[in-house]
């Protein structure tokens, strides 16, 4: 790979996408307004190739595969919580082995994609992910990040924001929610020096944002990773018709910047016209309601400072400053 060279992708139109068969089909049992299936449908429509999928334990897994039904029109495996990356790496190794032995025709191209929530990716599955990235398997890992263990009932994860009210960091008389900042997983993954890393979201203002990143990721001859913010209206506590609006706000407040790292080169993929205060995103969610009490003013200030600091750092990395 040439350092900094963007992977070649063929452009695709909404019309073309709309004509592709859905791989994650309707009838699954995810909550109305869940951000995850919106992202997953886009990801799966984006692929020009047949896909083989692995799914970590989590909301998507339990809601799409209740025996004897399945929502998946592609080969799919759930193994356990912490091992989606290792599992897909085994499937990809088998593909390479059989292809090398001539047991799969040389023209048969398959892409391998693993899905995990932030629990299965930031936390319990981090070792498995790191190992698979370092080994150089050709696969795309997608973290659909809803900032908490939503499947087990909204417990904190290392992706949960500072101050979040979760069931294991409840707002109490003594402690005002989660006391730590979230982990910057996208940077941790980028430090593995893999060909393609991105942070993305399904924002209404750019329909191709996630789709184009997936298409780039599937072209690189090695591991790729996309961290996708996906709201959980149960955990974030907002109305279920506000999912995309809140996703847009997360991006426009620069709380969740959209960028990609291609062979180590950072590139901003979306710059809000006007950077909104993070409070505009926070105040729309019940999990942050307590932060707007006078005694928690300091926490609110810390959140804004951290967003500003991270945004500035990112702009520097992207050559925007």
């Amino acid at each position, binding site marked *: 790979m040439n350092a900094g060279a963007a992977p070649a992708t063929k452009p695709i139109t909404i019309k073309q996408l709309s004509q592709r068969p859905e791989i994650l089909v309707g009838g699954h049992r995810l909550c109305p307004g869940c951000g995850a299936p919106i992202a997953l449908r886009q990801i799966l429509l984006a692929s020009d190739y*047949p896909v*083989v999928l*692995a799914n970590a334990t989590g909301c998507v*897994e*339990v809601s799409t*595969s*209740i*025996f*004897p039904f*399945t929502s*998946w*029109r*592609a*080969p*799919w*495996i*759930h*193994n*356990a919580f*912490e*091992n989606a990356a*290792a*599992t*897909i*790496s*085994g*499937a*990809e*190794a*088998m*593909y*390479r*082995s*059989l292809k*090398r*032995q001539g*047991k*799969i025709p040389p023209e048969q191209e*398959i892409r391998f994609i693993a899905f995990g929530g932030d629990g299965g990716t930031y936390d319990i599955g981090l*070792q*498995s992910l*790191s*190992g*698979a990235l*370092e*080994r150089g398997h050709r696969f795309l890992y997608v973290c659909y990040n809803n900032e908490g263990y939503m499947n087990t009932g909204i417990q904190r994860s290392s992706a949960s924001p500072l101050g979040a009210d979760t069931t294991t960091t409840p707002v109490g008389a003594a402690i005002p929610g989660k006391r730590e900042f979230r982990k910057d997983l996208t940077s941790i993954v980028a430090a593995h020096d893999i060909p393609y890393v991105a942070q993305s979201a399904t924002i209404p203002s750019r329909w191709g944002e996630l789709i184009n990143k997936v298409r780039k990721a599937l072209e690189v001859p090695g591991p790729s990773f996309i961290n996708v913010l996906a709201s959980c209206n149960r955990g974030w506590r907002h109305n279920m018709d506000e999912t995309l609006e809140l996703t847009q706000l997360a991006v426009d407040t620069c709380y969740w910047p959209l960028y990609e790292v291609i062979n180590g080169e950072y590139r901003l993929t979306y710059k809000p016209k006007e950077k909104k205060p993070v409070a505009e995103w926070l105040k729309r969610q019940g999990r942050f309601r307590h932060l707007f009490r006078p005694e928690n003013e300091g926490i609110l200030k810390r959140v804004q400072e951290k967003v500003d600091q991270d945004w500035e750092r990112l702009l520097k990395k992207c050559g925007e400053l």
Partner: protein
Amino acid sequence: MGKIVAYTGNQAIAEGMRQINPDVCAAYPITPQTELMQQFASFVADGLVDTELVTVESEHSAMSACVGAAAAGGRVMTATSAQGMALMWEIMYCASGLRLPIVMTIVNRALNAPLNIHGDHSDAMGARDSGWIQIFSENAQEAYDNLMQAVRIGEEASVRLPVAVCYDGFIISHSIERMEILEDEEVKGFVGPYQNLYHPMLDIAHPVTYGPVDLQDYYTEHKRQQVEAMKNALPVILGVAEEYKKLTGRGFGYFETYRLDDAEIGMFIMGSAAGTAKEVVDELRATGIKAGLLKLRIFRPFPYQEVTAALKNLKVLAIMDRAESFGAMGGPTFNEIRSALLSLKKPPLTFNYVYGLGGREPSLAEIHKAFARGREVLTAGKAEVLHDYLQVRE
């Protein structure tokens, strides 16, 4: 025709894996398995196998990658020991529940804490309910022979279960032994090409959902099917052994009996210590004591009917466990054998010795002690202490 070689147990298994030539192997080093995977890695490096070797970052990922690879559709092998197997434990259940015929060598070793790298059966015994077929070996020859047969047993359509081939750490894994191995072509012919039973994941035209959520309405039936597969494995094990005997002249059953037919005092044992125990049986026989031995080869599925039939004429049976089951009535095999014998009208008197923990080698004298205890029990007509230690400072 086979050829005679001098190999350690680990070398024998590495050589066997080279001959089997699996499509994928995912493994992580751990004492005393390490040498095995090193040897196999050198075969990969020299291009002697088609195997895609996935050098994972942990045993958890080793078993996870094996599951992904096997579900993708192909022959998959791995190897581990002790802590490594303990780390795999969660995913061992996934391998069996997904009915993936992965073959894994377990070089048996004690479990921490305290840390001990030497041989006992604690690791495999801890996974005895994981749904894996477990085959135990007395020496490197048996380990090699069991490996060949394991591939066929696990992949049989009526079985489709993962298989563990077990042998004692260091005693077998690191000791050089004269043994006979098959020619490469003979192995190729014996194991045959891998057959997919369902649509594997790489069959993209026929998408299958592997590892779904399975709730109160179906889970029981799926577990029941695993039980059936274990039952089905019993005749398959004998059929495969018969074919293997035609190829090698070496016969295998569920177990081996040694001077058991007319014996009064018997010993039940697994693994490398069986060799020592046979020697003791010979010494006792020379003094007119009717001693005999049953060495179990197939621990899962447990061939309880055949074991019971083989032991039915004994008056006393010493059951030897190379693993502890803390707080239980005795070691793991004691509970199973004793329970199986209760179906007899006049079951032999049984007692249990835990021995050889953390690689403490049972000497001839120690095994003699166990038989001497058997004679005392025979004289007394009852076993006062059921669960005891053969080699311990109290």
